[in-house]
């Protein structure tokens, strides 16, 4: 049972971050002086088992800036519930002071000023230092990677994920689950997984032909830690062949399969598991729903939707931990397991302030090693930005506005479509844009920028379909991305309506005319899930556009009118 006292301890751990800095102390030095590595890592070891969770790193080896979303709308039972609370409301909910390190790390608002004060976040050499520190307290702590690790950068693309495999192996995880990894293609995924020195788990990874559990991905693994029998069950992203190109991994089928999850939980319990941990890439709302349906899970380490929460969310007796993305956070969860059950926990979401945490020299050397052959290409400056470039938000982000502008002008299209993915770091105004920066927001194995004709009616179907993936009131029907970004096209969305009725007032921005369902429009886009998509790679399209502009400026996007939030 989780006592009220234990729950309070988690908030105390989170609030230990506060109080260090306030308004008016945003100068770089002040921020760094006010914040120390010891303070970030301060944690009174608790109980007998420690879990370390990293997830959705998206191949970000080096420190970056990452702006959290200001728009993240919850629907159905999750309206107004975390993680669908942003900005000032989020800070109020958790008692986070404006201008504090937690404000910068966890919420949107004043991002540029705070970024200049607190500096970059992440970097797997810093993550290594944090992991080592936790292992110094608790040598047998379990390190669990929630997936989306072998995707998302120039070096990851060019090494087909080998850079991430090498660096992660140096961190010595105990288990991992998957999502974007499969977009390397099943041959490459199988090749890597066969050589992994840790468990590759997924109770919902099935053989597509026979609909039987895939042999290469066991559902769970047992660990003996602190005298406790711990079962870790993997849950891969359920909708991989739908949200990503299924033709790249046709041998595999996925799905939520909560009835099989229940069977696995019952099975590990009957084999003596005293602690059941689910390493999940479901997305937060799906994990919440699953926790209410499947009984017997103690901890869900939640990934996919990139939410960073300073306290776990409790569903019944299941603790759900969300650890952010892009290498920005590490979660530590200490558990007291006695008499075959979890008696209490202590949790801390540790933000990786890269100017405060000392890089681990060994892992830094591995990172440099994988980057060196590509360094000239990575660091080439393509242009500069006058605007903050970021991605997160339900409907648009300035990075995607820029990508849509590139598609419209480079591909001579009426309308541009850009996928609503949630990965990709931010760039501050005044910063150079390097080739690495462009790849960080575009890199993928199906990046061809297509140009095609679509009728107004089909465009409507596309927007309605994606909107339902995001705003269906039942989380099990959500795929965890954001709305498809549009360039040259405005619309009104009423998120409370059912599929087919949410999107109205579609407007061709260049003429101000309403979209005609019967008329045909030239549409440019990228990341099509269809096999045989043709066109230049999106990073080349964006690079060409930025090079022509020299300095880019992105004006505020007012083309989406949101109703019912």
């Amino acid at each position, binding site marked *: 049972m989780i006592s009220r006292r234990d729950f309070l301890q988690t908030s105390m751990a989170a609030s230990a971050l506060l109080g260090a800095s306030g308004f008016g102390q945003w100068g770089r030095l002040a921020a760094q002086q006010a914040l120390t590595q010891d303070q970030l890592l301060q944690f009174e070891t608790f109980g007998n088992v420690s879990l370390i969770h990293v997830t959705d790193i998206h191949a970000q080896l080096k420190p970056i800036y990452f702006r959290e979303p200001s728009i993240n709308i919850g629907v159905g039972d999750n309206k107004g519930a975390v993680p669908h609370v942003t900005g000032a409301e989020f800070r109020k909910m958790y008692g986070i002071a404006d201008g504090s390190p937690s404000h910068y790390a966890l919420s949107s608002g004043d991002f540029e000023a705070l970024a200049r004060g607190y500096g970059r976040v992440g970097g797997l050499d810093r993550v290594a230092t944090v992991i080592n520190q936790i292992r110094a307290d608790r040598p047998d702590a379990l390190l669990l990677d929630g997936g989306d690790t072998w995707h998302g950068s120039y070096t990851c693309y060019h090494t087909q994920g080998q850079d991430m495999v090498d660096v992660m192996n140096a961190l010595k995880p105990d288990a991992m689950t998957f999502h974007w990894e499969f977009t390397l293609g099943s041959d490459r995924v199988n090749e890597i997984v066969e050589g992994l020195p840790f468990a590759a788990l997924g109770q919902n990874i099935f053989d597509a032909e026979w609909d039987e559990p895939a042999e290469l991905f066991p559902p769970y693994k047992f660990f003996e830690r602190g005298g406790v029998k711990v079962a870790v069950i993997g849950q891969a992203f359920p909708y*991989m062949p*739908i*949200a990503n190109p299924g033709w790249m991994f046709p041998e595999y089928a996925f799905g939520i399969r909560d009835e099989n999850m229940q069977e696995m939980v019952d099975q590990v319990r009957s084999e003596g598991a005293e602690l059941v941990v689910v390493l999940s890439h479901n997305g937060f709302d799906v994990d919440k729903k699953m926790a209410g349906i499947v009984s017997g899970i103690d901890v869900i380490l939640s990934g996919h*939707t990139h939410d960073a929460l300073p306290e776990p969310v409790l569903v019944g007796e299941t603790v759900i931990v969300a650890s952010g993305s892009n290498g920005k956070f590490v979660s530590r969860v200490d558990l007291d397991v006695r008499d075959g059950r979890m008696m209490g926990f202590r949790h801390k979401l540790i933000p990786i302030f890269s100017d405060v945490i000392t890089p681990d020299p060994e892992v830094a050397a591995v990172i440099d090693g994988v980057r060196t052959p590509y360094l000239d290409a990575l660091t080439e400056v393509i242009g500069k930005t006058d605007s903050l470039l970021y991605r997160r938000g339900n409907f648009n982000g300035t990075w995607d506005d820029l990508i849509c502008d590139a598609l419209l002008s480079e591909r001579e299209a009426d309308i541009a479509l850009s996928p609503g993915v949630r990965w990709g770091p931010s760039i501050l105004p005044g910063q150079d844009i390097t080739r690495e920066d462009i790849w960080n927001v575009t890199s993928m194995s199906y990046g061809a920028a297509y140009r095609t004709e679509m009728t107004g009616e089909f465009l409507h179907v596309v927007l309605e379909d994606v909107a339902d993936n995001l705003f269906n009131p*039942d989380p099990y029907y959500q*795929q965890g991305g954001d709305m498809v970004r549009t360039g040259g096209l405005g619309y009104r969305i009423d998120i409370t309506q059912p599929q087919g009725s949410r999107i109205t007032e579609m407007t061709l921005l260049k003429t101000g005319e309403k979209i005609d369902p019967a008329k045909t429009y030239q549409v440019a886009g990228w990341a099509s899930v269809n096999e045989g998509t043709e066109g230049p790679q999106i990073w080349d399209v964006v690079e060409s556009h930025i090079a022509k502009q020299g300095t880019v400026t992105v004006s505020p996007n007012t083309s989406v009118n949101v109703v019912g939030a």
Partner: protein
Amino acid sequence: MELTRRNALLMGASAFVVAGLPLQAATTPEEAIAAFTGGAEIGEGDITLTAPEIAENGNTVPIEVASETAVEIMVLALGNPTPPVATFKFGKLAASRAASTRIRLAGTQDVVAIAKLEDGSFVQAAATVKVTIGGCGG
């Protein structure tokens, strides 16, 4: 058969009915259910229907039905041009009263399984399966 102009017109008309108005095709779900249950009331109970929330491929969607006490289970895809999918019959010696198959779904719709139990009563389970064009996962 001699193809007269009148026959050709009739064929065209019935083809249109199938293509354009699927729910008014030869067998409606209501008719199929009435034929199966003889109009008896349908409750809830010993039946499970396992189907994906979102189909990976609408042309071949894996489903499974199970009931410990069923003698027959009928599966219907309510939004298909021809809603009846299959009826599974289980004898007294059946080791397990479960069946799995793959079905084709014309679009997002409810799949319904109705079991006739040994005691002559009927129970049902339903699942919404979404068929999507997909493509934008985080």
